[in-house]
């Protein structure tokens, strides 16, 4: 039972990472639509972390790789760490 629950938990966590990755892709693009308005420093750092891996969307392309790249930023903790450094730690 414990193993089954753990595997299920792992799958759910991965699914949530994928969903957050898609939301983050949209939000990143959204910030560019709002220029010259600037976000706060934490959001801005998150923006840069995503844009280091994913170029702006200028037309349709296969987004599968983009979603995967952002998901690994979330899953590895890189996004959280980088934003945490700028805003003085996230808990």
């Amino acid at each position, binding site marked *: 039972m414990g193993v089954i629950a753990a595997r299920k938990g792992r799958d759910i966590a991965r699914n949530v990472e*994928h969903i957050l990755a898609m939301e983050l892709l949209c939000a990143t693009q959204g910030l560019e639509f709002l220029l010259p308005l600037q976000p706060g420093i934490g959001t801005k750092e998150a923006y840069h972390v995503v844009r280091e891996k994913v170029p702006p969307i200028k037309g*349709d392309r*296969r987004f*599968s790789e983009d979603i995967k790249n952002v998901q690994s930023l979330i899953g590895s903790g890189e996004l959280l760490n980088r934003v945490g450094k700028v805003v003085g730690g996230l808990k």
Partner: protein
Amino acid sequence: MKVVFLDGEHLTSERVLEVAEGRAQVRISSSVEKKVKQSRDFIEKALDRGEKIYGVTTGFGLLSDQIIDHSQIEALQRNLIRSHSVGVGPYFDEVTTRAIMLLRANVIAMGYSGVRMEVLKCLVDMINKGVHPLVPEQGSVGASGDLAPLAHLASVLMGGR
């Protein structure tokens, strides 16, 4: 090697498994070309007459009232494939991918899709030569649950562009 003939009407689950597991080659039945060409001609002629065709000269879903200019109808088809290539998670194994490809070829062979014959031939060639697209398992929901996986399949058909 054993040959499975594809005519869009008589495919069985046993034959699908034979092809999926690489125990049989696929050949397109002689009756198919006429059906496929007829459905393609139908689309081409309607286009020539300037008729409005959902998904060909219009946008999709909520955007179906958007008319697409003739100069952009090819881009519309390419972008449809690109924008639906949003699958995530692990890739289907080779046997499953081959089954997906065969089922799609079978549907096209029915002659209701308006797809060019050369596309069907290319898909069958891919099966026979072992060209297997990487298709992520997750990414589609609901009644149109095969849109994302099939977009990944089609994007290899159009050369990954």
